[in-house]
Structure formats: structure tokens, C-alpha cells
């Protein structure tokens, strides 16, 4: 049974396959287009360079009128990412728009990695280090990046 959400997700998947953004890959889980697995590579020329971060996206039937639930599976150290991996990003909450698709969501998450918003901290230590001790922050980020290889 195809629903508008599933239709839209199929279209999103097709678009992602046809024209994938740099450093992003995503695909639905087996036999369920409403649950996706995604992989974001750390942006080049940043401390995140070389990291491979796994995410899960859960879509509801209200998609695209409601944002998906996006969560990092890999351990992260980021001012806007909670310890459980959920992301504090405006477009995934109140600034969601139906025209955003999976690629747009993943690219915005990718850009969030190197441009965090320390004003709405989800990880207090990361936010503190980001604003006070950039060196230590970068070191920790590199540690996380090294952990993400495994």
C-alpha cells in the first residue's frame, strides 16, 4: 500500500540515488521505507574530516508535513547533539518545511557538524569547550572521529 509519505520517500530515495550530495549516503532499511539508515562523512578541512557517522531516520505517515526523527548511532561530541544521539536542529523541529527532503536534512546535519550553535547547547561540555577551549574541543572531536572508524 502506497501512501503519500511512502511515495514521497521513494521519490527522495530516487533523488538521493541519482544526485547524491558530497559526503552523504542514505538508504531505507530492509523492507521498510519508513526507517532509513544514513552515513555522513566529516566535512573536509575540518576536525571532522575523515569521520564516518551513522544515523537513523524514522519517518511518520505525516511526512513531509512533519519532520523525521533523526538520531546519531555513532558516539558524538557536538554542542547540539545529545548524549543519546538526538539532534537539536531547528529544521528538524519548528523550522521544518515540507520541501525538505532526506538529502536536504542530511546536508544540513553535515553542515551543523562544523557550524554548531552553542546558544542552544545539547552537550554542555562540548558547548563550553567550543566557546572557551577550541583546541581541546578539536582534540575531542578528532578522538570521536578516530572512534568512528571502528
Amino acid at each position, binding site marked *: 500500500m502506497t501512501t503519500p509519505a511512502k*511515495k514521497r520517500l521513494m521519490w527522495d530515495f530516487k533523488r538521493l540515488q541519482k544526485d547524491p550530495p558530497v559526503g552523504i549516503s542514505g538508504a531505507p532499511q530492509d523492507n521498510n521505507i519508513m526507517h532509513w539508515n544514513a552515513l555522513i562523512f566529516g566535512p573536509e578541512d575540518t576536525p571532522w574530516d575523515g569521520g564516518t557517522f551513522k544515523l537513523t531516520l524514522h519517518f511518520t505517515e505525516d511526512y513531509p508535513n512533519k519532520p523525521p526523527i533523526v538520531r546519531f548511532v555513532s558516539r558524538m561530541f557536538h554542542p547540539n547533539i545529545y548524549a543519546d544521539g538526538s539532534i537539536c536542529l531547528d529544521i528538524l523541529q519548528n523550522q521544518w518545511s515540507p520541501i525538505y527532503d532526506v538529502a536536504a536534512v542530511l546536508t544540513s546535519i553535515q553542515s551543523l557538524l562544523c557550524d554548531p550553535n552553542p546558544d542552544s547547547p545539547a552537550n554542555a561540555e562540548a558547548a563550553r569547550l567550543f566557546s572557551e577551549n577550541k583546541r581541546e574541543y578539536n582534540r575531542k572531536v578528532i578522538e570521536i572521529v578516530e572512534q568512528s572508524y571502528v
Partner: protein
Amino acid sequence: MASTGEPDRKRRHFSSISPSEAAAAVKKQPFFWPSSEDKLDTAVLQFQNLKLSQKLEAQQVECSILEDKLSQIKEKQLPYNSSLKTVHKSWEKLTASVESCSVRVSDSSSGAHRFVNKEDGSSPAVKNDFINRLLETGATESSSSNICSNQMEENGVNTSSQMTQTLYNLVAATEDLRCLKDELYPTVLRTNLGKDLCGQLALSELESEIKSFRGDLDDVLVKFKSLSRELQSHRDADAKVRVDLKRIRGELEDEVVELQQCNGDLSALRAERDATAGAFFPVLSLGNKLATSDRERDKQRDLQDMETVLKELTVLASGRLQQLKNLHEERTKMLGKMSNLQNKSKSVRCISSSQACLSLKDQLEKSKEAVFQYMALLEKLQVEKDSIVWKEREINIKNELGDVSRKTSAVTDSRMASLDSEIQKQLDEKMRIKTRLGNISRERGRKEIFADMKALISSFPEEMSSMRSQLNNYKETAGGIHSLRADVQSLSGVLCRKTKEYEALQLRSADYASQLGDLNATVCDLKNSHEELKLFLDMYKRESTDARDIAEAKEQEYRAWAHVQSLKSSLDEQNLELRVKAANEAEAVSQQMLAAAEAEIADLRQKMDDCKRDVAKHSDILKSKHEEHGTYLSEIQTIGSAYEDIVPQNQQLLLQVTERDDYNIKLFLEGITSRQMQDTLLIDKYIMDKDIQQGSAYASFLSKKSSRIEDQLRFCTDQFQKLAEDKYQKSVSLENLQKKRADIGNGLEQARSRLEESHSKVEQSRLDYGALELELEIERFNRRRIEEEMEIAKKKVSRLRSLIEGSSAIQKLRQELSEFKEILKCKACNDRPKEVVITKCYHLFCNPCVQKLTGTRQKKCPTCSASFGPNDIKPIYI
């Protein structure tokens, strides 16, 4: 001419063996040589050649003779060498003696010094004479031969050089000695300070003698120096002569070589002449002149050249002869000098052989011995001096050391004091520690006993406290008894008082009773009187009428008055009656009280009895308790005694404990040592274990090896057996094989025949194969042709297909169409076409999406998030 003649003469004069007559003839010939210069005939040339050859031969002969002479002279020289050696020895002895003398001179002994001085005074002259004579003798001895003299001279030079050397050594030695003496002099002076003035005088004499001797020595030195100079000059001259001689010899050799060449030329010319002249020698000159005029001219030129060469050579020879002459003269001079020297040496020898010389020698020896003695003395003195100096130094060092040691001792004393104080402190600390240790050991060692004792001791106070509490209880009870007793006594006192009161009250009641009786009696009287009075009054009332009544009334009044008076008194008596009544009442009350008191007394008595009983009981109990107390006290005493007994035991035990502790410490130390030993033993054991392990490992390895070897052996044996079996089988099989071979041989022959057959078949099949190949080629060709046709057909098909599908423009159009369709799709859902427009921002969406958006609270454009109202949505129709 004259120049050549002179050396010859000299030679003849010098040499005992004169040169041969042929040589003389040869020497005469050169005088006629220039006269035949003008003749240019070959005969003359030949003659000249002959002469030249003769001359050459003569010169060679002369050379040989000279060589012989030289050898002879050398032979002669040998004995002289021996003599020279002896002379040398004597000279060395002399120099040694002189040295010893000089050494002796430096000594500071007086007696021998004079003797030495005498000797030394004669010694320089002797030396000079000796040297001169030596030189003379050398000259005389060497006068027979030049070379010998030369050698002698050389020897002389050597000896002189040695002499000079020895002299220099002597001088150096004397100077050293002088220095030594200068050094020694003050020391000697010091040592001899205590000695006599005679010694000083002798010393002064010695000094003067020494000075004179020094002067003599200086003279000797000067003489020796001059002599050495002379010898040096002689040596130089001799060296020059020798060099000249060598040069001349070399020149002579050159001449000989030239002459040989000339001879060679001459022989060549002779040969030519022989060749040209041949047999006709007599007419040779004319024929030759005619035929070989050119050759003759050449020869003449050669001859002229040769003549010029010869002239030059003669000139050279004459120069050399002159040089030789000069050298000979020099040599003669030298020889003369040498002869003088030899004469001198001879004289020296004579002198030395003379008695005076012998005596001198003896004296020299003696003086040598004396010198040695003095040397030894000097050495001893030096040693003593050194030892004294060393002692002084040692003493100084000892003094310094003593000072240092004093300082150090002071320092050490202070240190000792401080250390003593420290030691004291340490001892105190140690004592404290010991006491602590003792306490600790006591506590530790006999804890159990202490615990028991403590328990015992702690139990004593408890018992004591319990007993005390019991005692207190008893005391309290005793106090209660005492109080009861006191109560009893007080009660008895009260009882006595009460009885007394009772008695007093009885007395009083008795009084009161008597008074009452009196009063009753008076009352009765008064009643009687009252009745009488009443009667009197009635009577008076009946009797007394007015006057009389008044009088009577007055009398009665008086009487009443009296009666009142009496009544008053009776009233008083009535009061008394009341009192009596009260007294009676009080008596009743008191009787009641008395009864009560009696009852009380009875009660009290009962109580008292009870109390007495109690007291008796308590006194019994107290007695028993006292007894118990006594028993307890005795027990306590026994326990105390036991405790006292235990205390020394305890002390003994403590001592034992301390001893045990010491023993334990010892044991601990022993344990440590034993542990160390154990460690070492363990290490050894470990090493041994290792060794054993290694050995065991090795043994196991060996055993393994052996087992392996055994296995191998078994395997080998098995193999051997197998091999044997195999061999057997093989032999069997071999036989079989042989049989088979035979069969196969048969078969082979059959196969050969078959092979031949098959060969023929192969030939046939080859032919067939060729045919088949041909067919295959044909087939291949056909296939290629078909493939080409296929390609052509495929091309045709593609062309046709392209024709069918149409151009690429359609595809492009399709793509564009899809793109446009995509554009026309709603961006929100990507599903439906765009249907409505948001007029605020002019973004297009499908109606359901916009409716969904309008359903939400925040109405924002999904693309630009511009807020819009429901009125801003307008449908469009594309």
C-alpha cells in the same frame, strides 16, 4: 820533462821494490815521441801505436805494482795496529788514572791531598810528553810507508779524539766535583765546627792545594786543546790528500780507458791496413797513396785528432803529476810529524817502562784506592747528609703532623664531648625505648596471664564492692537497729515520764478528790446553811413586821450580805468544784490517755519485743555476716598473699620474657643469617635445580633422542624387514618381471609388427587428416563469409531500428517534458501537480499540501517560510 822525472825518482827513493826496467823504458820513450811527430807514414803511426800500447802496459804494470805495494803496506801495518792498541790501552789507563786523580783532588782529606798534589803536578807534563812521544813514535814507525803513516795518523787522530773526549769528560767530572765540593764544603764546615782549629788549618791548606791543582788542570786543558786543534788540522790535511789521491786514481782510470779505446782504434786501423796492404807490403805506401788517398787523409785526420787528444792527455798528466808531487811533499811533511809523534810515544813508552813510571803507577793505583775510599766516604757522608735532611724533614713533618694531630685531637675532643652527650642522649633514649620495649614485651609476652590477672584483679573490686554494698546494707540495718534501740530507750523514757506524770496526776487527782470531798462537804454545809437561812428568812418574814422587819431586814440584809459573802466564797468553792470537775474530766482524760498510753506502752512493748527479737535476729545475722566478713577478709588476705606471691612470679616471668625476647632476637638474627643462608642455598638450589632441569631436560632430550633413535632403529629394522620382504617380493616380482619381460619381448615383437601396421594406418590417417584439414579450411572460409553477411545484416537492422525509433530530438524533447513535469509537480509532496498559489510570495503548491499547511498554527510558505493567511491562497490553472 822535469815534472815527470821527479816523481819517478821519488818513487824509486821511497819504494824498496823498484819498478821494472820495462816500465823505465816506457817512461823514457815519451821523450822521443814528439820528434817523430812530422812523419805521417803509417809506419810511424804504427810505431806510435806500439809505443802507446807499451805505455799503457807499463802503466798497468805500474798500477799492479802499486796495488801490491799497498797490500804489503797493509800487512806491515797489522803489527803496528797491535802496538797502537797497546798504546791506546796505556793511554786509557793513564786517562783513568788522571780522572781518578782529579776525583781524588776534589776530595777534602788533607793527608792524601798533598800526595795527590805532588802527583798531579807531575801529571800534566807527563801527559804532554807522552802525547808528543806518541806522535813522534807514530811518525818514526810510519816513516817506512806512506799509507801506514796515514793510518797511524788516523789512529793518532782517533786516539787524540778519544783523549780529548776523555779530557772533556775529565773536565766535566772535575767541574761536577768542584760543584760537589762547593756544596759539600759548607756541610763539611758545619760538621767540622765542633772539631779543632787544626782541621780548619788543614782545610785551608787543602783549599790552596786544590786551587793550585786546578790551575795545573787548566794548563793541561789548554795544552790538550791546542794539541786537539793541531790534530784536527792534520786530520783535515790528510782528508784533503786522500781526496786528491782518489781523484787522481779516477783520472788515471779514465786515461787507461782512453788508451784502451786508442788501442781499439789502432787495432781497427791495423786491420784495415792489413786488409788494404795484403801481401804486398813493401809497395804498400805508393799503392795506398794512389788508391786510397782519401782513406789516408781520413786516417791522417784521425791521427791528428788522436795526437791532439794525446797532447791534451799529456798536459793533463803533467798537471796531475805536479799535483801528485805536491801531495807527496805534504805527505812527507806529515810523515815527518808522524815520526816525531812516534818518537814521542816511544819516549813515553820508555818512561812508562822506567822505574819512576812504575812507582808512579803504583802511586796512582794507591791514589786510586785512596780516591775510591774517599769516594766511599763522600758517598757515606752524602748518604748521612741525605738521611739527616730526611730526618729533619721527617721531624718537621712529624711536628706538623703533631700540630695537626693536636688540632684534630682538640676537634675530636670537642666532637667526643658532643658525641658523649649524644651517646648519653642515645642511652637515655635507649633506656626509654628499653622500658617501652619491656612494657610492650610484658604486654605482648604474657598478655594472657595479664588478662587473667586483670580479670582476677578486676573481679576483686567487684566482689569487694558487692561485699561493701552488703556491709553497707548490714550497717544500714545495724543503724536501723540502733535507731530502734534509741526509739525504745526514748519510748521507755517517755514511759517513765508518763508513769511519773501519772503518779503526779494520781497524786493531784487524789488531792483533787480530797478537795472535791471538802468542797462537797462545804456544798452540803452551804446547802444546809441555805436551807436554814431560808428557814430563818421565813421566820424573819413571819416575825418581822415593819420596824422590826426593817431592822430584821437590815439584819437580814447584813446577813444576806454576809451570806453573799459566804456565797461568794462558796462560789469560789463552786469554781473549785468546776475545777475539780475539770480535774475529774482531765483525770478521765488522763486516765483515758493513760489507758491509751498503757495500750501504747503495751504496743511499744510488743514492738520492743519485736524489735528485740529483730535485734537479736539482726545481731545473729550481723554476727554471721561478721563471720562472713572475717572469712572474706581472710580470703582477701589470702588472695593478697597469693597476689604478692604472683607478683615475684610475674617478675620472674617478665625476666623470662625478656630472656626469651633476647633469645628471640638471637633466634631472629640467626633466622636472618639462616634466611640469608637459606637464600643463598635457595639460589644454589635454584641454580642446582636449573642445572638439574637442564640436566633433566638434556636427559629427557637424550632419552627422547635415544627413543627417537630407537624408533628410528625400529623403523630402520622395520624398514629393513620391509626391505627384506620387498627384496623378496622384488626378487619374486623380478622373476615375474623377467617372465613378463620374456612375454613382453614376445609381445613386443607382436607389437612391432602391429606398430608397423599402425604406421601404415597412421600414414593413411595422415592422408585422411590432410583431406579433413582441407575441408575445415573450406568450412572456415564459409563461416567467415557468413559472419560478414551477418554483420552487414546487423548494420542493416540497426539502420532500420534507428529509422524506426526516430531521431535524438525526440529523446531530448522527452527529457524536457519530464523536467517540465517535474517543475509542475508540487515541491512539498512531489506527487501532485501545482494547483494553488500563495499570493504573498507567489510560490506554487498543490491544494492538499496548502490545505494541510493552513490547518497548522504557523502558516508559512514551505519554500520561503513567509507567513500567509487563508485569503492569500488562490487557485491557478496551468
